[in-house]
């Protein structure tokens, strides 16, 4: 992977890795027996390992060709591999925590494997590990192809990718050791958060600098979504993680936001993490890979602009719907509810735009499972945004909030939309990146598709049932005005659904493992594509065409 770096760049890479290792040493010294000390050792090993990798091929031959004549794909390839590795880890943890709910003995009586510590490893593993790496990889690919320019840096793409993975590593290992800020999707502590700020700002600068190099007059809409994702996630991350550590030598910190303000900031962050991390970036993928795979331009470019601005400006205000019936002022709750309902318009505009793009290419959707992944993703995007708007309405929320319905909704979005569009994009990207004719096995893509669909449907239906039963049991009163069911009664009623949910998740995990194998074999064994100057992306051979 160093073959593309000059000797000077290799020196810088070595210095960077050394600096990271030294920072780790400092953390280990000040942190001592605190978790901060353990994390110092992890950072040291990470930096040292990278330094070792750089040194191993330090004196290898330097690049001789003109590097600006080709796109910079090495970091993208590594990003795809990391993304799939995190997918398997994160989804496995998901199946484990799902099984824990049905069979609590699966915690094996250890502190690190309790539900409260395992659950954030699942959410961080899939959202940041799987989703984040896929976003970084595809954004690097899309921005180069749509701008017709090489990435504006040689080292910075590596810094962004590997630095982000160091953050994920610190976050996940911290949860197992008992570290948490107790903020949903922002559980990692202050030092990891500071590190992510550095990484993320570098990402933003790199992206803007690449766009500035573009040879196209117009910035293609997919880049708008990726830029919104990068910029807004930076803002959200910084504001929500403003915290004061209890000392420089300890991992624990306290947020600067008091009481209900903290709740509002957290859910402004939390909902926009869904909006900009799990939606905007993946819409960027949708607007590039779906037209490319379908070999048809997007149905309406104007509509994509309108829905872009709708999504960026409406989502910002929707967070307070997580705090219905709380100490938050009533009008702020109403504001969040109204914007959530309005969000249906730009969301359905994007989903409709994607489906109408496929109008006229339905035979390809039928024959090509990769394109079907993206079609199903658009359908699930439409379904889960409708469900989300509906659940944000205060009286509906009275029934759904704190129940499994919410969990079902999140997974309709995360499995049905985010994961499906990612797999569709990766199956389009992998053959073109490694210059293969097609994926190793079209049958395995098909198998993955049906495992993913079956898993999602089983999961979501189980959670709908259990959520609504739970919500109704909690609000059923006897004639005397007492609650008819105890909490444990509702828990017993959940039991079959918890098993079904774990099974659905297992199917999805197996699908991801099949995908990993297929990608691996494509890189190793699929026939090389004939050299040809056009068509960046060549879909699998379509029978009957």
């Amino acid at each position, binding site marked *: 992977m160093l073959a593309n770096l000059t000797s000077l760049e290799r020196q810088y890479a070595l210095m960077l890795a050394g600096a990271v290792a030294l920072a780790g040493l400092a953390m280990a010294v000040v942190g001592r027996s605190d978790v901060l000390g353990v994390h110092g050792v992890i950072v040291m090993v990470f930096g040292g390992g990278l330094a070792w990798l750089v040194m191993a091929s330090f004196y290898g031959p330097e690049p001789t060709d003109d590097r600006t004549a080709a796109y910079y794909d090495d970091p993208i390839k590594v990003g795809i591999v990391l993304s799939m590795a995190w997918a398997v880890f994160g989804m496995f943890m998901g199946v484990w925590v799902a099984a824990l709910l049905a069979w609590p003995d699966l915690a094996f009586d250890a502190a690190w494997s309790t539900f409260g510590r395992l659950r954030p490893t699942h959410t961080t593993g899939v959202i940041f590990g799987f989703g984040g790496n896929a976003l970084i990889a595809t954004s690097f690919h899309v921005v180069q192809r749509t701008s017709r320019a090489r990435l504006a840096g040689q080292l910075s793409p590596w810094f962004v990718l590997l630095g982000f993975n160091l953050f994920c590593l610190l976050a996940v290992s911290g949860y197992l050791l008992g570290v948490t800020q107790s903020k949903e999707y922002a559980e990692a502590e202050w030092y990891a958060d500071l590190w992510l700020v550095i990484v993320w700002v570098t990402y933003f600068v790199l992206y803007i600098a690449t766009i500035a190099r573009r040879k196209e*007059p*117009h910035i293609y809409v997919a880049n708008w979504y990726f830029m919104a994702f990068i910029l807004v996630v930076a803002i959200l991350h910084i504001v929500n993680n403003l915290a004061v550590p209890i000392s420089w030598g300890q991992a624990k910190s306290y947020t600067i936001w008091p009481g209900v303000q903290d709740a509002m900031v957290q859910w402004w962050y939390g909902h926009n993490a869904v909006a900009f991390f799990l939606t905007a970036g993946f819409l960027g993928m949708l607007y590039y890979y779906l037209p490319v795979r379908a070999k048809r331009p997007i149905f309406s470019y*104007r509509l994509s602009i309108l829905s872009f601005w709708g999504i960026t400006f409406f989502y910002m205000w929707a967070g307070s719907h997580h705090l219905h019936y709380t100490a938050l002022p009533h009008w702020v709750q109403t504001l969040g509810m109204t914007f959530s309902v309005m969000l249906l318009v730009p969301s359905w505009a994007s989903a409709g735009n994607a489906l109408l793009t496929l109008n006229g290419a339905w035979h390809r959707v039928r024959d090509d499972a990769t394109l079907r992944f993206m079609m199903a993703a658009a359908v699930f995007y439409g379904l889960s945004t409708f469900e989300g708007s509906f659940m944000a309405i205060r009286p509906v929320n009275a029934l759904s909030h704190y129940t499994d319905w919410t969990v079902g909704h999140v997974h309709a979005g995360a499995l049905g939309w985010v994961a499906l569009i990612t797999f569709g994009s990766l199956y389009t990207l992998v053959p073109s990146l490694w210059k293969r004719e097609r994926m190793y096995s079209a049958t395995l893509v098909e198998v993955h598709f049906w495992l993913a669909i079956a898993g999602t449907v089983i999961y979501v239906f189980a959670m709908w049932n259990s959520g609504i039963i739970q919500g109704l049991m909690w609000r059923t009163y006897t004639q005397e005005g007492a609650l008819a069911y105890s909490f444990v009664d509702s828990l017993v009623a959940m039991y079959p659904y918890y098993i079904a949910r774990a099974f659905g998740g297992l199917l999805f995990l197996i699908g991801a493992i099949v995908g990993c194998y297929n990608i691996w074999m494509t890189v190793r064994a699929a026939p090389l594509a004939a050299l040809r100057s056009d068509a960046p992306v060549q879909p699998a051979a379509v029978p009957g065409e």
Partner: protein
Amino acid sequence: MDFSHETLVAFSKSWGLFYMMAFFLCVCVYAFLPRNRKRFDRAKHSILERDDTPWRT
């Protein structure tokens, strides 16, 4: 001027709405301006059928 909670609420409830509407109008103008039609048409076809190398002068 007195910046009470009510003042800020009144400000956000009125101007918060107006600037969103103004913004909406700007976006519509940008999207539907006939002058931009060619630009958008080119953009939407630009991602299809092209070399897989950066553009060179």
